């Protein structure tokens, strides 16, 4: 009995989110007269949400330590553009090197963010706001404002995001891989747990002997690496690299992570919650056009649904806390 209540209260966020997604899905199913719940559409939905899911995992690492990264969209754009330019100029380059390049660019940008925040003691919000513009500026410096079009890419490169394995699109595999790795890292390694520890209480972390600054830098580097990879996949998926690619994408990512129940103050959050948060955002992106909601309304509806999920979440938590107080005898 006791355990049952605990399982419910401990997973309150995930339950609320899953419920929201199911609710929306059923509403849409009804609205479209059965168009939504077809197998291919569900996989499409997952495929569309894949990049968002990956990057949300990355940002979650940063948010867990109590920081934020606003430069994600620019890192994705930079990595995508540099990979595309490299491919354009060296058509025979092994794909493996492109992946390496994407990871390296992401890691470097992430390290820069981490260094500014942890070592120069600049608030993450401001530091990454600055680097967001710097990285975006670097894209223009390399591209000269021009595109890299699909015609300038090799078929093997485009195939990265179109191949299927066991009948499932590679993007979904990438997202699944990153999610599972994040889950293992955050729950089963001490390095991952230290992200939670630092976000929970810096003074306690200091006493425990956790290297706070290093942990913060690590979170930014991991986030950067994932954003770098995602930037490469973005270029493959859309078949072009523009200087404006992914501009403002960080907002969707922040929305996913927050809707997924991560505390913006740090120290709280689950991989399952963030996965559901990203799925919720992805679902909305996918189905609002499907049910022919006017594009003018789509943004507002998204914002509204994020707000609802967060408010419900907060209300439920308050109730659980009150119940805990009620149990305390005086």
């Amino acid at each position, binding site marked *: 009995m006791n355990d049952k209540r605990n399982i419910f209260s*401990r997973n309150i966020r995930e339950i609320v989110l899953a419920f929201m997604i199911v609710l929306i899905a059923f509403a849409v199913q009804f609205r479209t007269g059965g168009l939504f719940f077809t197998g291919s559409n569900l996989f499409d939905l997952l495929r569309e949400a894949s990049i968002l899911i990956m990057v949300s995992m990355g940002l979650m690492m940063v948010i867990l330590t109590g920081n934020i990264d606003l430069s994600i969209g620019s890192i994705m754009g930079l990595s995508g553009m540099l990979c595309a330019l490299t491919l354009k100029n060296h058509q025979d380059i092994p794909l493996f090197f492109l992946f390496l390049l994407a990871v390296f660019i992401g890691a470097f940008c992430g390290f820069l963010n981490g260094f500014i925040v942890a070592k120069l003691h600049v608030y993450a919000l401001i530091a990454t706001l600055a680097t967001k513009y710097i990285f975006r500026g670097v894209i223009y410096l390399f591209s000269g404002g021009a595109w890299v079009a699909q015609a300038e890419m090799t078929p093997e490169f485009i195939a990265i995001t179109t191949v299927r394995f066991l009948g499932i699109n590679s993007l979904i595999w990438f997202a699944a891989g990153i999610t599972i790795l994040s889950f293992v890292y955050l729950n*089963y390694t*001490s390095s991952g*747990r230290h992200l939670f520890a630092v976000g*929970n209480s810096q003074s*306690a972390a200091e006493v425990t002997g956790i290297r706070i600054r290093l942990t913060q830098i690590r979170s930014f580097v991991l986030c950067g690496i994932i954003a770098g990879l995602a930037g490469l996949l973005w270029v493959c998926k859309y078949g072009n690299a523009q200087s404006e690619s992914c501009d403002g994408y960080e907002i969707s990512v922040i929305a996913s992570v927050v809707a997924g129940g991560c505390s913006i103050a740090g120290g709280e959050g689950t991989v399952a919650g963030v996965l559901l948060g990203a799925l919720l955002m992805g679902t909305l992106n996918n189905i609002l056009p499907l049910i022919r909601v006017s594009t003018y309304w789509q943004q507002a509806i998204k914002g509204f649904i994020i707000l609802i999920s967060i408010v419900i979440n907060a209300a439920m938590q308050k109730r659980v806390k009150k119940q805990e*107080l009620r149990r305390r*005898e005086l």
Partner: protein
Amino acid sequence: MAEYLLELKDIVKRFPGVTALDHVQFQLKKGEIHALMGENGAGKSTFIKIITGVHIPEEGQIFLNGEEVFFCNPLDASAKSIAAIYQHSTAYPHLTVAENIFISHYEKRKRLLNWPAMYKKAEKLLRDLGSDIDPREEIGSLTVAEQQVVEIAKAISANAKILIMDEPTAALSERECEQLYRITGQLKENGTSIIFISHRIEDMYRLASRVTVFRDSRYIATYEVEGLEKDQLISAMVGRKISDLYPKREIKKGAPVLQVEHLSRQGVFKDISFEVHQGEVLGFAGLVGAGRTELFESIYGIAPFDSGTIRLDQKEVRFHHPEEAIRAGVGYLPEDRQRHGLVLSWEIFKNVTLSTLSKYTSLRGIDTKKEKEAARKSSEELSTKIQSVYDTAESLSGGNQQKVVVSKLLDADLKVLILDEPTKGVDVGAKAQIYEIIMDLAEKGYAIILISSEMPEVVSMSDRIAVMANGRLPEIVDAKRTTQEQILEIALNLNRQKG
């Protein structure tokens, strides 16, 4: 083999504006329980943080088994099997109990964390301590006493050879204390050496074989506990006559100002009734976590309450926001002045007038001249040591910061002053001055509520003392006819019934 397991020589540690430790020494024998005693602010907590590598001393040497060691961070110390339970919780509120226990030494299997094993071990540790805490619970939802038990489990699980306990009994009920004594004895038999810091003299007599006394950041003496007279110990700790430190004056009491009846808040405090008169100092004593701060946060309008009435000058009031309370004449000096009482980076005069800005504002904006005048005047009245009113609040010492907060309170027209731990983290000289100020204020006709965990302070400064325990207020006693022991008895008794 060295004579001492751990020896510290001539340790000096300075913080901006204070010398926290002034050439102190300490020796720990293998397998002994060594009590470290002294008043608040004597430097005990800083001293432990030096042993555990959190602070690095400016001067002095540390020897472990006769070899000199240098601790640069807590990991160095824990690598030498030194563990500590700190006075202020070092818990991670949103992590589970089990994770809090194992955070510095996770159980692993094939390089991955082994949660089932940790939960199981945590459960065993807690059951051995006689506690039924669920290791999967978030630690933030536990009571202070329960969190303390977890901290103890944490230190035990780290397999400490030297265990330092900073005021472990402060928040525990009598029953929990007994358990702690039993466990501490067990640890000693297993060869652990323990440094035990406590205010409570009975703790020392029960447990320790030797005791070292610090006072005013200095080393005073080390005694064998056997044959040590209580009086000798107390005079070593206090170093002066109580009456010198506490300038209690007889002040004529006026009409009741603040009357509280049957105030309750679910799960926090229950059925609290008291009244405080003009010119009276009403002390609020109790253990950490007894609900004193929470009670006054509800009265002051920071937090809600469920039932009961508050009357100010016979008129029923209910404040929904501190601003309403200030306007009605109730002021609150928060416990954590750096966080809740001051804007540290602001100049003194801006801090003084912060909550009364409307007094200085006209259509032409804020009259800074008038502000500075007010700040200068109140600094003189309270003899705050400042260079100018342009100094920032963070540049002041703890005692002077506290005076600025008091200035801020006095700038409003108040009738009731709620002082929450006004002398916490303040050195002895400044303490005496703050006590003077409290008496001056009472003489001017303020009704004063003095919340304090320092027994001698409460007993010596108050007219009457309300003793809270576990969210209740069982008794209000006359300060002249009571002793520290009696108050502790009341505070613990209720816990014992419940615990």
